[in-house]
């Protein structure tokens, strides 16, 4: 019997396995005594993560004029907190496997999440007062994470809910609430708490469909709420939702940018999504390159 979100998390391997490397990076970034070299060494010890991060920083995400070849250079150029947030985003993307293809295509799921993350990053950049836009990207990446748990733990119920939404033109998150008793944002919140991720991410994940409830991080939540609508409207991938989710009108006012940014935002988003998705799922193997370098040294 499922009564609360925690019941669905029981026995999930993915839940307990958020890579240790992320907490190590986080600890080092938050410790005023740690050095750039120390942080760089922690990341470099994980070739998979190093490879994914270098792919990402060399993609259209930043469009740097020259290639960044090492983690230490990436740290200097991108920033420590920023690289930590990118590390979180890419680590989470690697966690969930073995979800039935007919429910959700994982690439399509992550394409939606990446598009939401990138849209959030672009909107945050237009606000001109955000120091770390990468955290908006990370928030966008994980906003629907709860849905993966539903697909993994109760695939049959999930299938029924998706069919019902298609037939009755309903929104999946409302149906989730009705059928299970809570929705993917409640589940995501519990997971974020369990992983001990920053409270801003917890609030974004918990209230991305009801940004008015966010108290401590209303701007972050509003940005991801709008970014989610944009990603759905542009049909970049799909997380299971057939329709564009309802919009909280106050969210747009809260972000405080003119409507005219929408057109350049969509242009930029189209350019970036393709390249960033390719960089995250792509074929260029930095890991192999790094191993070769290590051997030759």
């Amino acid at each position, binding site marked *: 019997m499922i009564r609360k979100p925690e019941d669905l998390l029981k026995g999930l391997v993915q839940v307990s396995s958020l890579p240790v490397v992320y907490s190590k990076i986080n600890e080092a970034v938050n410790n005023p005594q740690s050095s750039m070299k120390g942080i760089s060494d922690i990341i470099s010890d994980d070739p998979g993560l190093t490879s994914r991060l270098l792919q990402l920083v060399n993609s259209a995400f930043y469009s740097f004029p020259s290639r960044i070849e090492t983690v230490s250079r990436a740290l200097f150029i991108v920033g420590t907190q920023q690289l930590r947030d990118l590390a979180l985003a890419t680590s989470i993307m690697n966690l969930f496997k073995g979800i039935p293809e007919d429910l959700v295509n994982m690439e399509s799921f992550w394409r939606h999440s990446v598009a939401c993350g990138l849209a959030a990053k672009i909107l945050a950049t*237009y606000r*001109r007062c955000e120091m770390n836009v990468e955290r908006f990207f990370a928030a966008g990446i994980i906003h629907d994470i709860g849905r993966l748990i539903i697909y993994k733990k109760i695939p049959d119920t999930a299938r029924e809910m998706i069919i019902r939404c298609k037939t009755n*033109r309903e*929104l999946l998150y409302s149906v989730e609430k009705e059928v299970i008793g809570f929705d993917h944002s409640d589940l995501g919140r519990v997971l974020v708490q369990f992983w001990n991720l920053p409270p801003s991410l917890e609030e974004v994940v918990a209230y991305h469909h009801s940004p008015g409830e966010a108290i401590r991080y209303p701007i972050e939540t509003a940005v991801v709420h*709008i970014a989610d*609508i*944009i990603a*759905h*409207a*542009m*049909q*970049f991938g799909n997380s299971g939702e*057939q*329709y*564009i*989710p*309802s*919009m909280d*009108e106050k969210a*747009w006012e809260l972000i405080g940018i*003119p*409507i*005219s*940014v*929408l*057109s*350049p935002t*969509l242009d930029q988003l189209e350019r970036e999504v393709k390249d960033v998705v390719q960089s995250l799922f792509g074929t260029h193997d930095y890991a192999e390159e790094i191993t070769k370098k290590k051997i030759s040294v």
Partner: protein
Amino acid sequence: MGYDDINFGYLREEYYVSSILNDQTGEKKMGIINLEDIQVDMVTASDIKERSGRVLLAEGSKISEKHLRVFRMWGITEADIKGIEKEELTANVASQLDQNLLREVEIQTCERFCHVDMEHPFIKELFRILLLRLVRRRSKGQIDD
């Protein structure tokens, strides 16, 4: 206009493009248009300012190629232009497109927008951009992503 005889009522009462194509009598609308629609020799109807309030181009100035470059550099995304209305621009663009295709795409797109308020300015703009893009892409024979 070609839209008078079409009844979209079974989906939604008002459609953005169809409603503006039919709306020729409305009161004076805003002249603020997107940067991408601004062309050389257009005249500003108010000062163009960057975010901190510095005037980049004064009211009544004729816009040149160089100004457009400066606007892009400063992240200007819109400007108030004399004698032009955004709705008019969209209607002009829409009237040049394949009307059957436009109608088809509009119905399909509206379906996905059925849970949002089409009257909200943000949703209106999102719908407008999306519709024009989809129609252009389809008429070029490209498949949706």
